[in-house]
């Protein structure tokens, strides 16, 4: 009961603990990768951030489906906030990926990373989500349209991934082998902690933004009721 009412505090607390733990593990505990050196440590940020972005888009699509199906009044806002967070994490994925490419291979962008290309496409897609949302007047119509688009996004993810994989056959990029490190026990543990930290961070930010937007809405309704 306490947990539900204080979701924001709880998740913020969990996030703080886990992020600290992750940073400690990444920089002080896990051994440096034999092949790629110190720069490989970006992996512990990049991949969990990417996975968390997927989770955000998935959660947003779930709330969108709920909105269309059962129409609970808060679902549209929750879907929007989740997708907003997904785009932020997506942008971070692109940035950390780019840094990793620069540090590892000396270039700022490569088309050979399927993950990166997929995120670029998804970033464009979900950026359009916001353009769409801001160009429709608030109301039931906007909520419906946003929800349908969010569902399209989540369907696009696997199909785009398939397409990008198939595209490699005729695009022939210079392939930079970045074999994910053979995950020794300590590396895997660190990775998991980092991932948990990202999820906790995303949850905390989600609750924070949601609380803020709900308060906005309540204030607006109060103001109108007084007029």
């Amino acid at each position, binding site marked *: 009961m306490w947990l539900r009412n204080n979701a924001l505090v709880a998740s913020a607390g969990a996030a703080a603990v886990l992020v600290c733990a992750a940073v400690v593990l990444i920089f002080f505990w896990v051994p440096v990768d034999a092949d790629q050196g110190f720069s490989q440590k970006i992996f512990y940020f990049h991949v969990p951030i990417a996975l968390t972005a997927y989770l955000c888009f998935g959660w947003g699509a779930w709330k969108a489906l709920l909105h269309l199906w059962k129409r609970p009044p808060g679902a549209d806002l929750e879907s929007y906030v989740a997708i907003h967070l997904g785009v932020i994490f997506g942008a971070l994925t692109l940035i950390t990926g780019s840094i990793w490419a620069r540090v590892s291979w000396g270039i700022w962008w490569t088309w050979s990373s399927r993950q990166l290309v997929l995120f670029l496409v998804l970033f464009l897609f979900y950026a359009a989500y916001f353009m769409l949302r801001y160009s429709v007047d608030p109301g039931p119509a906007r909520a419906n349209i946003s929800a349908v688009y969010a569902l399209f996004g989540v369907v696009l993810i696997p199909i785009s991934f398939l397409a990008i994989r*198939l595209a490699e056959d005729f695009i022939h990029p210079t392939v930079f082998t970045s074999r994910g490190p053979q995950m020794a026990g300590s590396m895997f543990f660190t990775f998991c902690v980092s991932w948990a930290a990202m999820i906790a961070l995303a949850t905390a930010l989600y609750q924070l933004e949601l609380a803020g937007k709900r308060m906005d809405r309540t204030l607006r309704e109060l103001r109108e009721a007084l007029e």
Partner: protein
Amino acid sequence: MTYIRDVTALARKDLLLELRARDTLPAMLLFVVAALVVFHFALPGSSSQLASKGLLWVAIIFTALLGLARAFAAEREQGLLDGLVLAPCDRSAIWLGKTFAMLMFLVLAEVVALPLYALFYSGIGWSTIAGVALANLGICAVGTLLAAMAAASRARELMLPLLFLPLAVPIVVGGVGASVVAASGRYLALLAVYDAVFAIISWASFEYVVTE
């Protein structure tokens, strides 16, 4: 049975409207020809034949976008979507009828574009044609739904390319792959999967895009 009759009535309406107004199809035809000409100047001499195949697909996508931007023009300008939404027919029939009509326009544009491409650049094989046929379905299915979304927005025509292009990535991959790779089967399969999945989701969700 009545569903099919509804779809037919609606598709007929859209084709009849185009026959009378004659604005969308001529624009698409002229655009695709102009695009193919511009591409000649966009390809430096050392470009491969394969590059021009890729540009064919760019031409198709953007020609389709031109047509799709007009898809709900009458309904939007004259508030006619209300009339269709109020009718007792299933709202998805509106989508299906409109998709058929758009498909007709796109096919007609390609009937001109493909031979012209063969004339200007290089020959077209069966796998390219199969790719175009499959891609058409996906483009029109998704495009019609997105056109309805764009019609509801203040930005109107501006929204459609923004919404459509990310979703067009798998289509372009499938189409170009089918055109340039010898083993085109996988790419045609990708297009088929895209068509099936997105047609179903467009069909099912159209209702929610046009109603509250």
